[in-house]
């Protein structure tokens, strides 16, 4: 296959297929993921090729999907469960928080629950309510879970495979408005040497650090390109993982640039961005030339879709944040 230009959606599909080929214990379950291939077609053709014992169309019950997924893991399987949309994960929240995240420590290590929870996340698709949320803070706040985001096709391909190989439970966020954006994917590159939980400097710069993840990575890269025209050199870091946070990658960058803007779709209040601001302040206070600025969704419920362009941080709002950081 070698290197091909493809979409995040197709890269995820290929990554899932590879994981299922490599390990017969990998099982997918979720609503409409079989015959239909999922509402976003991420699991397209997988049931046809792997059978309905391994690609399971479930009843419409998220706690049931999650709880039985954990049960399958207890039996030795590696389930990848799909939550159809971000805002539908809450019925499964109890199972995720009370069981998935805690069984390993409850059993003092006797039990492993290698479950991957795939969640299409974020706004920007003009959807009705409950289809546009960025709820990573709930899960990042739950120790026992790991929480990652893919932001491009290349990462989507190897990150989903590594998440499945990970012995800890992983919440795997997919930026749904980027599903059909294309990028180069090296399908022959082994997933193993790369660290799922390490941040990636996607653009080097010297004047300010932009930290972001998931759908905001493209916004920040675009902002950095515009800023460069204005003579500002921005370093863009794709966190990939928001639990754990690769804090060393961020502090290394901030020690160089002296300024940090964190950009996220989620509201800023009690968020991953707030945590990064606190961590950076504690660790490299004397390197900072300005307060850490958060550019985020407003501190409200996600609005009706005709208003979402005013809610989601776009290129201009990121650059406004950059301006505020440079005002000091």
């Amino acid at each position, binding site marked *: 296959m070698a290197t091909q230009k493809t979409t995040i959606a197709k890269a995820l599909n290929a990554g899932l297929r590879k994981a299922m080929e490599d390990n017969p214990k990998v099982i997918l379950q979720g609503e409409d993921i079989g015959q239909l291939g999922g509402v976003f077609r991420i699991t397209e053709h997988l049931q046809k090729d792997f059978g309905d014992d391994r690609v399971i169309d479930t009843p419409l019950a998220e706690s049931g999907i999650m*709880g039985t997924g954990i049960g*399958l893991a*207890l039996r030795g*399987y590696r389930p990848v469960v799909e939550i159809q949309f971000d805002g539908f994960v809450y019925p499964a929240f109890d199972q995720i928080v009370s069981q998935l995240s805690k069984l390993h420590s409850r059993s*003092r290590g006797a039990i492993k629950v290698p479950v991957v929870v795939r969640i299409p996340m974020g706004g920007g698709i003009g959807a009705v309510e409950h289809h546009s949320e960025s709820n990573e803070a709930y899960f990042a706040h739950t120790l026992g879970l790991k929480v990652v985001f893919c932001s491009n096709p290349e990462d989507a391909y190897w990150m989903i495979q590594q998440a499945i190989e990970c012995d800890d439970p992983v919440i795997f966020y997919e930026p749904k408005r980027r599903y059909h954006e294309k990028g180069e994917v090296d399908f022959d590159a082994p997933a193993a040497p790369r660290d799922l939980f390490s941040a990636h400097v996607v653009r080097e710069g010297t004047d300010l650090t932009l930290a972001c993840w998931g759908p905001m990575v493209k916004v920040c890269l675009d902002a950095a390109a515009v800023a460069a025209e204005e003579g500002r050199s921005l370093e863009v870091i794709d966190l990939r993982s928001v639990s*754990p946070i690769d804090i060393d990658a961020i502090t290394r960058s901030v020690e160089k640039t002296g300024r940090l803007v964190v950009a996220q779709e989620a509201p800023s209040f009690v968020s991953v961005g707030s945590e990064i601001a606190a961590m950076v302040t504690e660790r490299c206070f004397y390197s900072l030339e300005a307060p850490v600025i958060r550019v985020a969704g407003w501190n409200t419920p996600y609005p009706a879709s005709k208003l979402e362009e005013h809610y989601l941080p776009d290129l201009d709002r990121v650059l406004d944040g950059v301006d505020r950081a440079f005002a000091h």
Partner: protein
Amino acid sequence: MSDTDVAATPPLGGMDHHVSVDPAAVPPRAAADGGPDMVQLLTPEGERVAHPEYDEIVDALSHDDLRGLYRDLVLIRRVDQEATALQRQGELGLWASLLGQEAAQIGAGRAMRTQDHAFPGYREHGIAWARGVDPMRLIAMYRGVDKGAWDPADHGFHPYTIVIGNQSLLGTGYAMGIQRDGAVGTGDPDRDAAVIACMGDGATAQGDNNESFVFAGVYNSPVVFFCQNNQWAISEPNARQTRAPIYKRADGFGFPGIRVDGNDILGVYAVTTAMLDRARSGEGPSLIEAFTYRMAAHTTSDDPTKYRVSAEVEVWKLRDPIARYKRWLMSEGIADADFFESVERESDELGEKVRSSTVSMPDPDVNDIFDQVYVEPHRQVEDDKATFTAYLDSFETTTEGA
């Protein structure tokens, strides 16, 4: 099998046991007493009631097996009494007593095969006992030493689950795994496996339980939902949990539901054996409602005098699961005075062991807070552990310097 066998000395092992009550002669049971549908093989007075489906299962038990069940009942009640007392003495943070539910739990636990798996709530000490979990592991949890850290792989007995109803979905998922392993319906008695998912009457109101019924029904999974209806969800009676009798719910989910006298160990053993066999052979899920009574408080933190009358408890005392079974064993000549004395001695020894082991149980290592949160290290947990270690070390330095 005969329901008129009156042999003075029953034969040893695997043969007919004396059946003295003709079910046709028993007047219909009132709803509050379990209703007419309730399977009962042993009356509160200790008389065997014939049953066309289940007699065969009871008759397959040897006298050793039957005496073993009595021993189980007495010993787990002793563990429970000691644990309650230890809590009163400040040695345990909490205890959830199984008093009155011994027959339901031992009956179900002993119906399981080695390869079967149980998913308990937090009161299933009797099933834990039957699965070979050291009672001290249960006590360690209620003492606050750990969170119930036995290895399910060693016992087919999963961690205690405190969030009501969560475990029935885990059990159903596990049963889906058994299906995918090809360990159901092969006819190999050492391979085919099933799950017992435990719940109480309170848990039947939970979404997770109802979702587990849906999943197990849709996938025909080998899981027996074992509901101990002990009549009370802390202070709320059955009437606040369900309008229909619990066992009748199974109808709506498309699998059999059976109510059995939960204080009748022969009944629970027989019904659970039959339903587990059914599950292992590929016929799918079932719901057993073991109709019993929580004789003690919900936990040692509860005061049932606030919400229930003692007259109700007195009625259920007359239905005690151990007393009726002992009466039957004696009347059948299955066990003699020497046997009962030996069990009492063993019970006393176990009680002493539970007391001494509890008070001498070491506190956990502080690093337990951080270790085993993840399989593979998590940076922020590691950072916290380092911070805490440095903090503790700072006191040692101060002490040395002083």
